[in-house]
């Protein structure tokens, strides 16, 4: 065990001069953080939405998808990165793979929940109006499932922003890299705290932006509530 470090002026909790002299490092870490989050969420959404639709169509698919995802969600993130590293190396791929896995589970569930909530009368009515299966999905079911999918997307994005930091173990943790290296370099507080604040602000920003996007995309939901 290490000994507690004495508080002194060289290691304050917050320091503007640290931020000024390391602005480029902070910016690079922020950009990597955003990049890892965005790539992971896009890949996860592209896989999860069709899987969610499949699960809504078939009970057997739903059971297997939900139970597999439940088991995978239980596995700790560090274990996932540990299991992938020997194969994908100390690379951004390892991080993205792990992040996609967690985001996938949230998004599949959200899609399934959204589709299950579509009232059967609405589906009947659309069928009566002569909608084919594809049209029904594109024009009725998915729009009605959209609030749930967007909620899933918001939760997945915010969780991913926080989870990217664990990628620091394989050298691609965005702002998490600064937290870990700050800790390892004599418990350098300004770096740890600045990176933490940036990370939390980024997550909250994602939350706000996605909430606004959801409002813009689903004007009917707003009117009802």
């Amino acid at each position, binding site marked *: 065990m290490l000994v507690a470090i004495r508080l002194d002026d060289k290691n304050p909790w917050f320091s503007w001069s640290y931020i000024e002299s390391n602005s480029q490092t902070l910016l690079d870490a922020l950009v990597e953080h955003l990049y890892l989050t965005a790539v992971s969420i896009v890949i996860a959404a592209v896989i999860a939405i069709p899987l969610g639709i499949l699960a809504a169509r078939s009970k057997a698919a739903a059971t297997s998808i939900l139970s597999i995802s439940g088991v995978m969600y*239980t596995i700790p993130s560090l274990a996932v990165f540990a*299991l992938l590293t020997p194969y994908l190396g100390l690379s951004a791929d390892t991080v993205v793979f792990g992040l996609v896995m967690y985001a996938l589970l949230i998004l599949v569930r959200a899609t399934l929940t959204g589709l299950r909530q579509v009232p059967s009368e609405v589906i009947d009515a659309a069928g009566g109006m002569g909608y084919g299966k594809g049209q029904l999905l594109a024009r009725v079911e998915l729009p009605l499932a959209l609030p749930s999918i967007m909620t899933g997307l918001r939760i997945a994005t915010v969780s991913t922003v926080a989870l990217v930091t664990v990628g620091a173990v394989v050298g691609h943790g965005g702002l998490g890299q600064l937290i870990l290296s700050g800790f390892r370099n004599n418990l350098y507080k300004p770096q*740890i705290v600045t990176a933490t604040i940036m990370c939390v602000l980024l997550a909250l920003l994602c939350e706000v932006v996605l909430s606004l996007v959801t409002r813009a995309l689903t004007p009917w939901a707003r009117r009802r509530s």
Partner: protein
Amino acid sequence: MNPIGAAFTWLNDPLNWTNPGGVIDLVIEHMYLSGLAVLLGCLIAWPVGIWLGHSGRGGTVTVTVSNLTRAIPTIALLSIFPLTALGFSTWSVVIPLAVFAVPPLLATAYTGVREADPDARDAASGMGLSRLQILTRVELPLAVPHLASGFRTAAVQVVATATLAALFNGGGLGEIIARGFGKTIAVGAGEILAGGLLVAVLALLVEGALGLAEKYVTPRALRVAAAQ
């Protein structure tokens, strides 16, 4: 040697299990830290959640707490707490872990008490039970399934999250992975993989055991109701 072979060689060496700081010691430490964190989480979240549910206030509080904690990286708290007055201690690991146990515990305690059957509540008050008696004899028993499922979610999450403590000298089973990452990948791959497997198995075992416990503590009448 391929990583899987190296991992099994590592797992097959009894000394890796029984040595000081071996798997057995680390599992005990891991469960001790996790147990304290869940306990601390329950001590804080249950009274608050139950009170909020009983009084019918605080739906937004539970949502806000879970949204806020979701935005906080675990490794940030695990690295910041040892730098406070707590220093490197059990509590500098347990408190950050407890923070992440609170949202599921709080939300389920709130929902469980809030959603107790209003008819049962009316009947109890008609029978002359006081507000406190209604809480302890009607609302809480009816909330047990919710409390149990929140406990399972929180405990599994804490056991999983506790893995990260090893990166910040906090101990626990993540230590094996951290040691492996401390070497080059060629040398450490087996240890990294073995550590990952052990941690995953531990999390799944805890999930399974608490799933059974959850069934056991749910009163029979509620079990039937849940199945329908």
